[in-house]
């Protein structure tokens, strides 16, 4: 309910202040842990507590990144991985949504396809790698398809369970107004499943990162996954760690974008 409080009481102010202080503490500790970790790592490498050749160090990683940046290699690799990831995620999500709608539409189809989906879900998709390479060639296409394969089932399962959670009375209500099945999908099932779709997107993004790196491990001439594998092969751990750190940052950034998107969706729906 909208209530306008013009005068904030003292007790309320104390409460707000305490909340703010806690928030500040949480933020400070979060960054503190990261900085402490990096500092210890760097110190450990400087004072030879750890072998920087095997474990690398923040300084060496920065140096590697600088070199990569200056040659323009870094942006190219990041761009390749991001592009593959976004393509795979997009097609995986679209296909998952479409399949979920089809299975919601026809109960018979859902029953028929159920064992296939169970097996496809249980199958480690990486086992399909060689097949993909033969079919798609060793390039972007195989990686995108791998990403799609890894994300599509999770998206399908999450969205479909959202669809099936819609109260049947809501459908009855709509049908009593004379709504067609398409109306039901459009007016209740899809809008009612937006929270499920948002969580499917979040899961799908995570799965797509897995897919794209797995794909790049298998076949690639560029990308962060390629850098990691290449670095491992030539024993340049600085490169492996630097690429991993970039991957972490990208995943975190994408998570932040998703969280923002989720908040926007919630706001427009009054949640």
């Amino acid at each position: 309910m909208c209530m306008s409080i013009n005068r904030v009481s003292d007790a309320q102010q104390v409460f707000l202040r305490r909340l703010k202080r806690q928030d500040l503490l949480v933020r400070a500790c979060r960054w503190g842990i990261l900085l402490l970790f990096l500092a210890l790592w760097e110190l450990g490498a400087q004072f030879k507590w750890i072998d920087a050749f095997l474990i690398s160090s923040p300084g060496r990683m920065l140096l590697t990144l600088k070199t990569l940046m200056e040659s323009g290699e870094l942006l190219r690799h990041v761009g390749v991985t991001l592009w593959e990831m976004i393509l795979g995620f997009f097609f995986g999500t679209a296909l998952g949504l479409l399949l979920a709608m089809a299975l919601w539409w026809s109960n018979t189809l859902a029953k028929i396809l159920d064992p296939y989906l169970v097996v496809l879900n249980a199958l480690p998709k990486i086992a399909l790698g060689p097949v993909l390479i033969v079919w798609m060639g060793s390039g972007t296409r195989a990686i995108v398809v791998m990403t799609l394969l890894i994300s599509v089932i999770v998206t399908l399962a999450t969205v479909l369970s959202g669809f099936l959670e819609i109260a049947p009375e809501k459908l009855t209500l709509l049908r009593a107004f004379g709504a067609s099945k398409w109306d039901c999908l459009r007016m209740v099932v899809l809008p009612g499943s937006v929270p499920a779709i948002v969580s499917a997107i979040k899961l799908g993004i995570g799965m797509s990162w897995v897919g794209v790196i797995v794909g790049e491990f298998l076949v690639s001439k560029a990308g962060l996954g390629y850098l990691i594998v290449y670095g491992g092969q030539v024993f340049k751990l600085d490169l492996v760690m630097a690429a991993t750190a970039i991957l972490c940052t990208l995943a975190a950034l994408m998570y932040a974008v998703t969280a923002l998107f989720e908040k926007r969706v919630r706001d427009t729906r009054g949640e």
Partner: protein
Amino acid sequence: MYYHDLAGETAVLQSFSMKVERGEFVALLGPSGCGKSTILSLAAGLLRPDSGRVLLRGEEIIAPPFHMGYMLQRDQLFPWLSVRENARLGLRVRGMLGEESQDRVETLLKACGLADFANAFPRQLSGGMRQRVALVRTLAVDPEFLLLDEPFSALDAQTRLKLADEVKLLIQAEGRAALLVSHDIAECVSMAGKVVVLSKRPARIKRVVEIELEGTPLERRGLPRFREYFDFLWKELDVHVD
């Protein structure tokens, strides 16, 4: 009318016949699980009878009819739509959302004391207000005949009495007919002009009682004869607690 499942078939309705006249308020009173809701679903065109016919204005109902409004036990408001958009839902489904019908929704919202909440979301409303929105949604399509499936059962006692008054007033304002399903004797006597008592499953009509009481549902509850009707129906219903 039969229901089928793996264990076999269950007869829900057998040789059942009833009629609701224009402008009439009829209540179906029966024990839980006797088939009351099935009768409503048949009337709403959501189910087709295995044999027999359901007619509205002399025409057989084969799909949810245009002149019918259906109000469910729970409001079933869509949490992602504002009160106004929820109220417009039926119009939107039927593609009747014009200027005139929009005015109608606003008038109804005002009549139900919801004008200030038109842009609020259902989550922000109390149970009684939510059910009022559901009523507006039902009336927005201007039905001649309303089906009420225990529309007050999910509300607390005070809200229930208040809302019964409002619903009755709004329904009868434009000479609409209504068929109320309930297992609450007092509710039936206070609202209806005629109470049809049903037997256990398969439902048949045990008795039809004309209620000759004047006034709003709340006023009726205070009348001496209200008690008589109540006692009579209680005996008819023959409730066993087991």
